[in-house]
């Protein structure tokens, strides 16, 4: 995954490199043509000076021949030819590479030449002026070097600017992102987006606020519905239950009728439990639960004692509690959570179930015998385990998860060596 800002940075950088590389030949051509023009001008000036110099001398033809010889010796870049002509010759301009040696070294130099004629005493003498020009490859090299330095400067600048931009300009966006990340439907805290002077961010924040508000409304309605529905069910359920209680008192009932009533009674008991658990589940998120300091170690031992009273094989539960853990939570809810885990371990254990309880490192682990690993992704979902075969309500572990989430405890499940492990990290 790349960051949003890195995408345009890449494109901008590539484009800048492309343009700067293309600029190298362009610069070269421009620099070279300016060079040539200047040198041509320079060569013409030299010609004028040469012509003027010779004419000032007003030499005789012998002197002239001597002067020309002397001139050619001391001015190696320009050569005056001895042959005189009566008519002027047309100028020609050229560029040429010559092998030149100076200071004992020979190298190829580039020259800009002018082949022309100067007029001395009414006669035309051919004149060749050649001026050293910077070689093409040297020019290209120099331009490339400079360009490379600029490219580097640009890229470094882009990266630094990009960093600053992402920190400054994109800050509202990251703020919003952080708010959404920490948003939880269960906690009735709505994220407060800060105002931004950037239109897109402002629009984004407004849309998100609207979306979250709608979701919260629907969520609360749903929660309220569950709660109200469960409440409303309590009275008709009570009616059914008491009617059945009265019915079984009838001595004239046949055995078949009694069995029918028992089946009804069992189903009713199950509905009652599901309803009670739904009510509890819907109520957990309400903030109405008071918080106190709860001694988990103490609670655990009293719960285990109570559980041992139910079973006729109290030896199945062994404890390994060697750490005092105190949490800040609602006592009743914490008790519901632990007792659900315990009854879960008792109910779903295989034959010869061994339940082991460990409390250490602020973690409560309850293990029981099992035959196959359970699917942990469904385990804590509502009604995920409920079926006509399973005796539970399918809500016990969902309640455990809900309570743990309320107090930011971590619930986990593992299966190792034929044992189911349920853990709560406080």
């Amino acid at each position, binding site marked *: 995954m790349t960051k949003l800002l890195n995408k345009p940075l890449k494109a901008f950088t590539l484009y800048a490199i492309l343009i700067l590389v293309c600029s190298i030949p362009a610069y070269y051509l421009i620099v070279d043509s300016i060079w040539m023009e200047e040198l041509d001008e320079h060569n013409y000036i030299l010609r004028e000076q040469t012509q003027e110099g010779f004419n000032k001398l007003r030499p005789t033809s012998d002197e002239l021949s001597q002067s020309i010889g002397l001139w050619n010796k001391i001015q190696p870049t320009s050569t005056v030819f001895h042959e005189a002509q009566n008519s002027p010759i047309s100028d020609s301009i050229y560029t040429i590479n010559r092998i030149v040696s100076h200071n004992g070294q020979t190298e190829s130099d580039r020259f800009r030449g002018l082949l022309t004629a100067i007029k001395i005493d009414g006669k035309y003498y051919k004149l060749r002026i050649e001026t050293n020009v910077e070689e093409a490859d040297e020019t290209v090299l120099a331009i490339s070097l400079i360009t490379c330095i600029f490219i580097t400067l640009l890229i470094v600048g882009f990266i630094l600017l990009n960093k600053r931009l992402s920190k400054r300009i994109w800050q509202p966006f990251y703020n919003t992102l952080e708010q959404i990340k920490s948003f939880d439907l269960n906690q009735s805290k709505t994220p407060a987006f800060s105002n931004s002077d950037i239109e897109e961010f402002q629009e984004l924040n407004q849309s998100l606020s609207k979306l979250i508000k709608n979701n919260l409304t629907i969520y609360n309605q749903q929660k309220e519905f569950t709660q109200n529905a469960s409440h409303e069910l309590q009275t008709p359920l009570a009616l059914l239950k008491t009617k059945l209680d009265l019915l079984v008192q009838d001595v004239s009932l046949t055995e078949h009728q009694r069995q029918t009533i028992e089946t009804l009674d*069992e189903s009713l008991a199950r509905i009652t439990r599901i309803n009670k658990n739904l009510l509890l589940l819907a109520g957990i998120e309400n903030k109405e639960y008071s918080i106190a300091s709860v001694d988990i170690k103490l609670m655990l031992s009293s719960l285990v004692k109570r559980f041992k*009273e*139910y079973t006729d094989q109290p030896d199945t539960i062994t404890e390994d509690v060697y750490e005092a853990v105190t949490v800040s939570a609602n006592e009743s809810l914490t008790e519901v959570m632990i007792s659900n885990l315990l009854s879960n371990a008792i109910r779903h254990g295989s034959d010869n179930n061994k339940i082991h309880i460990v409390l250490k490192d602020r973690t409560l682990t309850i293990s029981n015998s099992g035959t196959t690993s359970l699917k942990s992704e469904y385990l804590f979902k509502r009604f995920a385990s409920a079926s006509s075969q399973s005796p539970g309500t399918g809500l016990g572990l969902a309640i455990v998860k809900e309570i743990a989430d309320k107090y930011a405890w971590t619930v986990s499940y593992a299966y190792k060596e034929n044992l189911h492990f349920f853990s709560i990290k406080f």
Partner: protein
Amino acid sequence: MKILIIEDEKELALNMAEYLNKEDYRCEFAENFEQAVDKTSSFNYDCILLDLMLPGGDGIKILETLKNQNKQDGVIIISAKGSLNDKIKGLQLGADDYLAKPFHLSELSARIYSIIRRKQFGNSNNLILHELQIDLLAKTVKVHDTDISLTKKEFDLLLLFIGNKNRVISKNALAEHLSGDMADMFDNHDFVYAHIKNLKKKLTEAGYNNYLKTVYGTGYKWEA
């Protein structure tokens, strides 16, 4: 014994009364807040069954008034709210017990029985039933003057039976009684069988007159 049933659901009130009438209790009814205030202020009851959600007012106010008037009526709150906070609040205000809807009539009867016993006999709460002697405070049981050591659950079961003499108690009612407040407790009847079997065995060994009868297909009955 006079019992006032404050409950707006008429049919439910009648069911309670029908069950309780057989137990020598006389039941009166109040269907709304006004009637409830009227009756509780004019008469004394051995036990008041108080539904918190009443047409015309909050049942908690009736409890508060009773306590302000220093009345000695036993009060059992019967609520559909079933929330832990309601329970704590009700008991703090001086209710003697709390029962969440829906409940079994045997459970209600046992609770009324225990409250009335407590109100009548105060601290010397010894119950004598033929050859059985039960000390409700010390939670000890004697048969023919021999001590029987019962577990807490067995003792609870015994009290449930004593509070529902000559009534059939279904296995589900027994299971719910045993699991008490636990949110997601067992529906497994094996636990019930095991405890009843042990209770019966201990009482029989001490020589009681086999009052605890099995009603096939339904549950158990204490015949006395």
